[in-house]
């Protein structure tokens, strides 16, 4: 473990890796927090949606159809959106009849997650898959080598988050989502359709998970339970940022992405998740509502 003194070159390398982490965590965590904020569904199947996004991209590009990768990406995101709608229809909608559904939905989404993981195992088999990068090759920034794919990740994250922000602020539908997030009873009284908000947010969140799968898939291999670690980290970020707060989630993603990269640089990659859980416990003791969260 010796010799981890930072020099300037390593520092910039670590910072760049950190920003790529931040970008992916932000996309995953914003999807989670969007759903939790407006619908109070804690979606444990978010990681499985991530894996399915990556699997679908593999299926359309190198697996079976050999589509052009740009078409694959668009198609995958589109399908994932409908998977999200289906998830709401089949899993969450029938459950909402019961009074204590907010507890039960944790169990149901967990069951659904393990179902989806094993469906992937049955359909695609246990062998790991590899999907192509969005852009091959690398560029030099100063004296640090950066993959073009990683630059795409950061740019896409920024674009997605800006679009999402504009969607929530400017469009009628986005305002409906925010209204439901603030006061669901009030929103129902003024005539907003809860079901549409539930479907829409779950659809968007599933699409975001799919995009993360496409972006992170080339960096990790794809296997049925690949989503769990990313999901757990995104989850910690979501809680750290204050469940349901999009802005808080962004700051938390930046903090944890950087913390992780320094910890793994010093201690090794396996310590990433334990550090996340440690930080989570610490935050819950010191500031349980998260960095920017508010109590309901």
């Amino acid at each position, binding site marked *: 473990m010796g010799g981890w003194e930072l020099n300037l070159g390593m520092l910039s390398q670590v910072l760049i890796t950190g920003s790529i982490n931040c970008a992916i965590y932000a996309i995953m965590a914003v999807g989670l927090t969007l759903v*939790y904020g407006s619908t109070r569904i*804690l979606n*444990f199947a978010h990681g499985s949606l991530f894996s399915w996004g990556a699997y679908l991209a593999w299926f359309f590009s190198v697996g079976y159809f050999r589509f052009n990768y740009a078409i694959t990406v668009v198609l995958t995101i589109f399908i994932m959106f409908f998977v999200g709608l289906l998830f709401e229809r089949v*899993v969450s909608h*029938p*459950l909402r009849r*019961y009074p204590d559904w*907010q*507890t*039960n939905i*944790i*169990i*149901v989404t*967990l*069951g*659904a*997650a*393990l*179902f*989806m*993981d*094993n*469906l992937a*195992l*049955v359909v695609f088999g246990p062998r790991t898959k590899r999907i192509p990068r969005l852009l091959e090759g690398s560029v030099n920034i100063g004296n640090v080598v950066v993959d073009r794919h990683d630059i795409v990740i950061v740019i896409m994250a920024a674009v997605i988050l800006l679009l999402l922000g504009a969607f929530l602020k400017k469009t009628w539908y986005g305002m409906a989502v925010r209204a439901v997030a603030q006061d669901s009873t009030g929103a129902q009284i003024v005539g907003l359709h809860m079901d549409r908000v539930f479907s829409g947010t779950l659809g968007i969140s599933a699409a975001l998970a799919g995009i993360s799968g496409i972006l992170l898939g080339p960096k990790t291999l794809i296997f049925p*339970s690949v989503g*769990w*670690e990313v999901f*757990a980290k995104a*989850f*910690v970020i979501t*809680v750290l940022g204050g*469940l349901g707060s999009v802005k808080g989630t962004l700051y938390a993603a930046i903090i944890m992405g950087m913390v992780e990269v320094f910890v793994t640089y010093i201690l090794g990659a*396996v*310590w990433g*998740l*334990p550090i*996340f*859980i440690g930080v*989570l*416990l610490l935050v*819950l*003791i010191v500031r*349980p509502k998260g960095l920017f969260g508010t109590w309901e």
Partner: protein
Amino acid sequence: MGVILAMQKEYRIYIIMVAVFSLLPFFYHENRYVMHVLILFLIWGVVAAAWDLILGYAGIVSLGQIAFFAVGGYASGMLSMSTGVSPWACIAAGGIVAGVIGLGIGLPCLRLRGVYVAVVTLGLHLVMPTLLMRGRDWGTGGWYGLSNIPPLRVSAPLGLVPIYYVALGMFFLLLFFMDKIIHSSIGLAFVALREAEQFAESLGVNQYKYKLMVFSMSAFFTGVMGAFYAHYISKITPAILNLDLFLLVMVMVVLGGKGRFPGAVIGAFVLTVLNEVLRAAEIYRVLVLGLIIVLTMIYMPNGLMGSFELVAHSIGRRLKRSPVL
């Protein structure tokens, strides 16, 4: 018989169950496989009931029960292997270690909304394999875990039938404790909190205190069974934390009936048998388990026990109405 009939209804059921389970080895003592499955049922029955105690009664969505199971198993195994203390004492110690860790986890997060508890306990479960594999210097055995854990013994190592009776004794003892907790003032406090949280708190019911108590007790019960499991199987590896076992026990609770006391035990029986049946279709096993959870929660949220109660209730009403009786 007179004595049994004079007792309260619940105790009668206990006596009958004890009698039935005590007699089973007389028929199956030669079939090692059946005995093994029965012992597994007794272990999972307690683990599922302890999970139900906090999930169904205290309303805490804990996802760390299998982690507590592993903690108990590892603590007991490591203690007996490194010090040579009798496995019986180690089982108790394993339970205590799990209970203390439960207390440590519950202390910061049981004050918060249920969602946070779910996240923290699932996090605990997910980091356990890393900690166990990295903890080789402390004697966790890394990837390969612990093997050759000393077996339970009274002068000589116990055979399968005596172990069955030990498991049976622990099963009834721990279930009896849980039954007592559910029907004590603590259980009443939880019913009050579930029905009218603010009113109960205004009457001075301290939610946090009771939750913390039940949470660590549940961890203790689970840890004891984990320790017993480790000594029975004689090995324990990080694979115990694979999500399929986690899912299996969760299905037991959900299918049996969340918050309907012996329900989780019934679920444990059904699932232990079903799990053995599904072994032939290994790749579909977890798929089926996940599907059972989703379908049960949507279409039968009170589980098998809830359905039994419904049927028994309607039969009872019909009997009362019928002029013959």
